[in-house]
């Protein structure tokens, strides 16, 4: 990984959204029994060992049932997929396993099942440092993501960078603008009253800028995820996080 790009937040000044939220919300995230994300993690643990599809295989059948076999995986996704010749995120990886290994129908984006499984896999990396792969094939996609981050879009003519690089810690109406580090996805947003993926969050921001959101799973979103993860490299995974 190269040093921070020009215009980026210096590495020493990076903060997770956790640091910018109220103490009550922080306590909610830290207490496993108060964190609603735990409900999805437990559901994911159940799904993990359930056989599915015409192959009658469970996730545990290949990956083991230890509950820690996926440690560190969420910290390095999105990763390059050689068959598709493009990066894929964790939810897409889960669905590829589902269609190709289990011979089952793919889960819909933002469905309870895919959120539960990605929360279960993600929570196994809790406390680990985000470590984007040094794969050179990812570079063009990461650059696309960065360009999207800097691109002014929508009727408000805003870019991601204008809020999250230049004005973080200030307020946008009542809410504090975070630095946009995807440390805790999928996370429980109190506003959603549910767990949601990073793509749902990106969609929210695009709608807020009055830009047209991409379809779930669009390469643009994955490119943005890839760039955001490299921007947050070295920060600790908080999955499942809680955010206001």
């Amino acid at each position: 990984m190269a040093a921070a790009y020009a215009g980026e937040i210096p590495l020493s000044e990076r903060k997770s959204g956790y640091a910018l939220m109220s103490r009550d919300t922080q306590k909610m995230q830290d207490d496993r029994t108060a964190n609603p994300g735990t409900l999805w993690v437990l559901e994911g643990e159940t799904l993990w060992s359930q056989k599915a599809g015409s192959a009658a295989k469970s996730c545990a059948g290949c990956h083991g049932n230890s509950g820690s076999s996926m440690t560190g995986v969420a910290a390095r996704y999105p990763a390059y997929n050689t068959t598709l010749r493009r990066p894929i995120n964790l939810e897409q990886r889960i669905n590829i396993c589902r269609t190709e290994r289990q011979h089952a129908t793919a889960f819909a984006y933002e469905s309870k099942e895919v959120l539960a499984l990605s929360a279960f896999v993600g929570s196994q990396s809790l406390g680990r440092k985000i470590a984007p792969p040094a794969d050179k094939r990812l570079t063009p996609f990461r650059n696309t993501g960065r360009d999207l981050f800097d691109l002014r879009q929508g009727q408000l003519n805003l870019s991601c960078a204008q809020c999250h690089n230049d004005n973080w810690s200030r307020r946008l109406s009542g809410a504090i603008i975070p630095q946009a580090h995807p440390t805790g996805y999928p996370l429980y947003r109190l506003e959603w009253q549910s767990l949601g993926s990073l793509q749902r969050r990106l969609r929210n921001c695009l709608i807020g800028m009055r830009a047209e959101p991409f379809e779930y799973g669009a390469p643009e979103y994955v490119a943005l995820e890839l760039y955001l993860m490299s921007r947050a490299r070295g920060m600790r995974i908080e999955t499942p996080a809680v955010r206001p």
Partner: protein
Amino acid sequence: MARALINVPAKATRGQVIEIKTLISHPMETGYRPDYNGKLVPRDIINKFVCTYNGTEVFRADLHPAIAANPFISFYTVATESGVLTFTWTGDDGKSFVEKASITVA
């Protein structure tokens, strides 16, 4: 799916005030929200929560449509004797979800 998380201290001394935390997965559908076709989604909430301690009711709450999804309820009680705490959430459909936790009082 109904899934609940209960946080009760496993051990306590007699007379000690203990905090009990409960979290249950539930959509708490208000009945005021239209779906994508403009039709109202029928109300579906948990309307009652009861906690009994060895059969004696120690806490009860009525829940209303303005309460967020996945209700988190926390309360205090006095540890009197070893035994079982029973938690019952009852929904609009009249069905209940029951969860138990045991406590040792020395």
